[in-house]
């Protein structure tokens, strides 16, 4: 099973990014082969709709689960119909969250926040 996580660095030890849509990288981790792949988030510097584009990146990587501290409503509209489950991270590092996920300790995210659309510089 493939897991996706927004991470601040290209390392399994990396910290989880506070934001989903504008994270620098995604870690795509295969729980069977234990292989890690790092994908640049092309949405990081978007003028708008970063959550939609970032979710597209995750879906295109065929991740079945996303581990993230938070998720916006537009990203969820891309992820949920694609059957990508959204779990809430509990730890700072990617590695610790993967371990927690494997033990079944992470739960599905309950709160999908509304967008931050109003007020960005390019509105």
């Amino acid at each position, binding site marked *: 099973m493939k897991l996706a996580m927004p991470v601040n660095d290209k390392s399994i030890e990396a910290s989880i990014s506070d934001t989903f849509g504008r994270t620098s990288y995604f870690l795509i981790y295969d729980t069977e082969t234990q292989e890690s792949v790092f994908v640049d988030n092309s*949405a990081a510097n*978007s*003028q*708008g*709709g*970063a959550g*939609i*584009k970032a*979710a*597209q990146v995750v*879906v295109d990587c065929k991740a079945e689960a996303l581990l993230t501290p938070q998720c916006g409503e*537009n990203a969820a*509209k*891309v992820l949920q*119909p*694609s059957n990508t489950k959204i779990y809430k991270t509990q730890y700072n590092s990617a590695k610790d969250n993967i371990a927690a996920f494997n033990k079944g300790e992470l739960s599905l995210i309950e709160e999908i926040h509304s967008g931050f*659309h*109003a007020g960005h*510089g*390019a*509105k």
Partner: protein
Amino acid sequence: MKIAVLSGKGGTGKTLVSVNLAAAVKNAIYIDCDVEEPNGYLFFKPHKIVSERVMVQIPVVDENKCSGCRTCIDFCKFNALAYINNKLVVFDEICHSCGGCILFCPESALLEKTKMVGQVEYGTSEAVTVITGRLNIGEASGIPIIKKLLHYANNENKITFIDSPPGSACTVMESIKDVDYCILVAEPTLFGVHNLNMVYDLVKLFHKPHGVVLNKCVDEENPAEQFCREKNIKILGEIPFDHELGMMNSNALIAVRTSETYKNLFTSLLQTVIEEVQNETIVNP
């Protein structure tokens, strides 16, 4: 003559200045371009209101024609399109209505549909024409509303005051791009200077003649005034930090129509502004 009133942030006094200047002229046009939260109408209480809907064109997908090539997704810099489960999905409220996706679709699978994003209302208050723009909640951009509003700013025989949105983003640029003069309203604090500097940079970039109104003035050092002196910016007038004015404002009364003192203050400010605009027209026709 078109005059825009700007400030780097909300609550500085744009509406106070533009409403009172328009009321001082009597037969002026007042246009509220702060379409996310218009408030000039609260003072003018216009009657005989006519409203007009503002529509934009957004894409809609013909699923039978879409080949999933994603040309539209790659083109859209606002990321208003996504490809989910082999289906193209449009996020209506993210779309800025540029029409690019429709132009670039190699299969002609994107069509246009019309969507209402807000409205424009016009009415009168004594001899002032009051025009208000209103953007629907959640919409991406106020620009289509402002474009519609500014159609009404082309009366050569009247002075038009444009109450601009706060800040210095796209909606402000749209509001000032065809004006003859910009009035920058500033607060007497360091934070006020920072915000003043933002709109000062903007009007210079647009090569707009401009001057500053110092609002909320007290008998202390005024950093905004110092800033104007350092940069050699014309100070058009000062408005005191005054309890009586605050009371009129919080009761939605127009100071010019309520108080003799403020009628004189804004009439004098109006004269200064008109002279400045005329000087600019002579120097820079």
